[in-house]
């Protein structure tokens, strides 16, 4: 038997009998091969190409939602079809439509990435996901008749299931491309976050680059110039890659901010074609640009820790305020406190969860420990207590310890001496404590050292007051 005859027998055994289905299979095979070959035919070289490609390509994020909707609908229709057969009849049509829209989105996606000069690992994943998805959808279209006729009952459900997985995965990659890879996890509750794989960010880095330059690039540039996408062949997600530059050469010229492409592009007028960040993203803040400029001017060293003459914001932010509970049921009593004691409880803002502020200035001289104790039942709702110049004494620390949501406490020019300050240490929310003009001593204030959120401690005009710079100079 000649080879040709053997092939004919093989084909006879494997290919469907009907001429129409056979043609369908052959066309499908060709389409699949073409799709698989596409990444080699149109290489993602990280260089932008024709504008018309980008113009059309930018419809990809719009169109891409159509196949998602249609394909998700298919298993729903198939399942619902077992109760209402008419629905199952429509499933075939929806599936075919899904495949067609897959092809269209794929084509636009290619134009977007190729025309815009995008490249990177997430992009490749998204691309291969899209290709696999399209081929999967095509196979589903072909395998569905076997399922309805009962010849091969397992193939179609299995294929459909894998298509669903491919869909979710591909869509997630696409989402990561547009919104950034931490889009879903950024606001995840801390309790859940610890199950995530640790990011490689090094919290102990002290260099100026690690503290300021990298975070700016990470927040504004890495979306298109990073691991997932590296437009123009440029990646800025690490120091070495940043210094290496892109297809057009280095973007940072140490010591020469005006010749550094990165600075030039971010300082163009925002409607300029080459302005970065591109595509209408928010421009860098002027101080961020100033930091980059100063850092480049100083030689763009990865190790330098501080730049002379460059202000830095406080590295760590204050803890977010904890919302207080609902005090609306107490509204009348809160009003009565003002009428009775002359001290007011006023809301911080129109949002009840922001809490209440205790103002005593109207009755300062007559407001002592006993009066403060009467506010104890509102303690969980009070976030700030203005007790400056009142008659409260050390005895009030006991009461204040119950103000669990207290963030700011004014005790300036009161009779407190600091005896019992330690009772305040469980107030983890406390960020501001004013003891100016009191008799608090250095040793009494020392217990406050354990309160890590207490960032604003004022000891002006007390025995504990730290010597001013001028006095220190005099002492020397």
């Amino acid at each position, binding site marked *: 038997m000649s080879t040709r005859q053997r092939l004919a027998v093989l084909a006879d055994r494997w290919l469907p009998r009907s001429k129409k289905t056979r043609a369908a299979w052959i066309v499908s095979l060709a389409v699949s091969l073409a799709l698989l070959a596409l990444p080699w035919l149109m290489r993602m070289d990280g260089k932008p190409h024709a504008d018309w490609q980008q113009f059309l390509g930018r419809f990809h994020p719009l169109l891409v939602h159509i196949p998602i909707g249609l394909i998700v609908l298919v298993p729903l229709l198939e399942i619902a079809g077992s109760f209402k057969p008419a629905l199952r009849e429509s499933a075939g049509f929806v599936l075919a439509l899904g495949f067609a829209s897959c092809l269209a989105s794929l084509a636009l996606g290619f134009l977007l990435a190729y025309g815009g000069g995008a490249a990177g690992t997430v992009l490749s994943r998204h691309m291969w996901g899209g290709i696999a998805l399209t081929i999967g959808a095509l196979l589903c279209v072909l395998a569905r008749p076997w399922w309805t006729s009962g010849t091969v009952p397992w193939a179609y459900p299995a294929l459909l299931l894998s298509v669903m997985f491919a869909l979710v995965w591909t869509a997630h990659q696409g989402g990561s491309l547009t919104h950034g890879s931490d889009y879903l996890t950024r606001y995840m509750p801390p309790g859940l976050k610890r199950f995530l794989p640790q990011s490689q960010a090094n919290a102990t880095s002290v260099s100026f680059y690690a503290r300021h330059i990298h975070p700016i690039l990470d927040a504004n540039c890495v979306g298109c110039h990073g691991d997932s996408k590296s437009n123009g062949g440029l990646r800025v997600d690490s120091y070495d890659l940043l210094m290496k530059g892109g297809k057009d050469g280095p973007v940072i010229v140490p010591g020469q901010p005006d010749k550094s492409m990165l600075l030039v592009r971010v300082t163009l007028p925002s409607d300029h074609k080459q302005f970065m960040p591109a595509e209408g993203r928010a421009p860098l803040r*002027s*101080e961020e640009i100033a930091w980059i400029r100063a850092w480049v001017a100083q030689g763009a060293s990865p190790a330098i820790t501080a730049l002379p003459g460059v202000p830095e914001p406080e590295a760590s932010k204050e803890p977010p305020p904890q919302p207080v509970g609902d005090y609306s049921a107490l509204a009348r009593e809160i009003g009565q406190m003002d009428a009775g004691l002359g001290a007011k409880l006023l809301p911080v803002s129109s949002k009840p969860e922001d809490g209440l502020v205790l103002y005593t*200035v109207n009755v300062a001289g007559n407001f002592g420990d006993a009066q403060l104790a009467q506010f104890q039942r509102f303690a969980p709702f009070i976030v700030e207590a203005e007790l400056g110049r009142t008659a409260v004494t050390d005895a009030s620390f006991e009461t204040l310890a119950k103000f669990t949501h207290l963030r700011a406490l004014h005790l*300036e020019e009161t009779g407190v001496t600091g005896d019992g300050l330690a009772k305040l240490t469980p107030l983890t929310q406390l960020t*501001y404590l*004013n003891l*100016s003009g009191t008799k608090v001593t250095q040793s009494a204030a020392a217990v406050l050292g354990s309160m890590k959120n207490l960032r604003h401690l*004022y000891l002006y005009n007390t025995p504990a007051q730290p010597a001013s710079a001028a006095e220190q100079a005099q002492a020397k």
Partner: protein
Amino acid sequence: MKQHPLCTDTEHEHSVLALPVPAGVKQEWAALQTRRQFLGRTGKVLGWAALASLLGDRAMRGDTPSPSYGQAAEALKLPHFAPRAKRAIYLFMSGGPSQVDLWDYKPNLPSLYDKDIPDSVRGSQQLTGMTTGQARFPIAPSHWAFKRYGETGTWVSDLLPYTGRMVDDLTIIKSTNTEAINHEPAIMLMNTGNMNAGKPCLGSWLAYGLGSMNDNLPTFMVLQTKLNTKENNQPVSSRLWSSGFLSSEFAGVGLRSAGDPVLYLTDPSGVDREVRRRMLDAVNEINRQTFEELGDPETNSRIAQYEMAYRMQSSVPELADLSKEPKSTWDLYGPDAREPGTFAYNCLMARRLAERGVRFTQVYKRGWDMHDNVTGILPIIAGETDRGCYALVTDLKQRGLLDDTLVVWAGEFGRTVYSQGGLSPANYGRDHHPRCYTTWMAGGGVRPGITYGETDDYSYNVVKDPVTVRDFNATILHCLGIDHNKLTYKFQGLDQKLTGPVPASVVQDLLA
């Protein structure tokens, strides 16, 4: 006879105030009634005209009455969000300080001495009547050198050595710009958001929206600095701290710069606290009867003001008693601060008002309007204010008050880089310049140690990040927890607001 419910023309006339309609409508009706009654009676009794003028023009206008303290804050749901600053101190540099000589360092200017400013830079800028006849506009570089100060290395003129020391605490805006070119409209625009008189000023809006923290002192206080030089003192008037169409309760209360801080606050001899109280009670009773008859809400404002004055009889002497200030205070503010009415004294007073929960304090310093003899006068005015500004910010900071107090330093416009009148190496003058001027803020809600906005090489046009007066005021309101678009008051059929109808935006880059 039973009446058909819809047949109104045979019905007795109901009192509108008894109908189940919203309280606001009733108030509006009561106010309208006031006007009708007034018009009805003037024909008969001329004396009413005298009363009406005593009550102010509001009785004749018959506007919607404004709610009093607390009511407003509650109804407006203020603050809209948790504020960074609870109070503000506004150091108003009336006359237009020269940004060219104080803040906006231009190292290229000395080489352009006496050269004409290019027409391309000047563009179509309107000139004042004072320089419009000038044949040429020669560039007058600053007579003073600039130095870098602080860790930020910010350039500050040698005229402001004290301010230079605290430059890392300041948020400097070099790109403030206004639409007005003459004092009165420009100063009205800065203070009330409108060049025309009649609108409430920033302090009144704050008093109206945020209410009082201390019932014993006015919510909004104005401190005037006494005059130092005889020249260039553009007048400031009470229009600038007027409550406009808001209740007069929200107007600024001035402390005098000499003698008693508030006139007639001390009881005359033979009148003790008790007698004063009984007299006030009687006056209040008469006022209440008047209110019942006429329904004019301004009558209630009067009652409130009499009561405030009564409480101020004890709170103001305590406020003005500086005997308990420690030595460090005098070291910081300097010897001027001992003399009431000086800028340093007012800065100290502003700190004391902040400590006592006064929501808004505005210190006015006149004398910046230097059309000629800049080298003669500017050192005097700058020297007079430099230490006070530094002392105030530093004092607030060391006492822990700067965390929730916003300090603002601003004039109504800047000054031209070209000389008005003759230019010599020794002296020059500067005309009004609305296109760019430098202002600064410090404290609650703003980002310290930054300079925002840039001007061109001639300190003439803003080239980057312009800040309009509207944006400036919107940003101040934001620091105090107020959305400038939501703090409104219905008047003349419009939802009036400080920033006016033209869109304004909070300058996010200035915020901490």
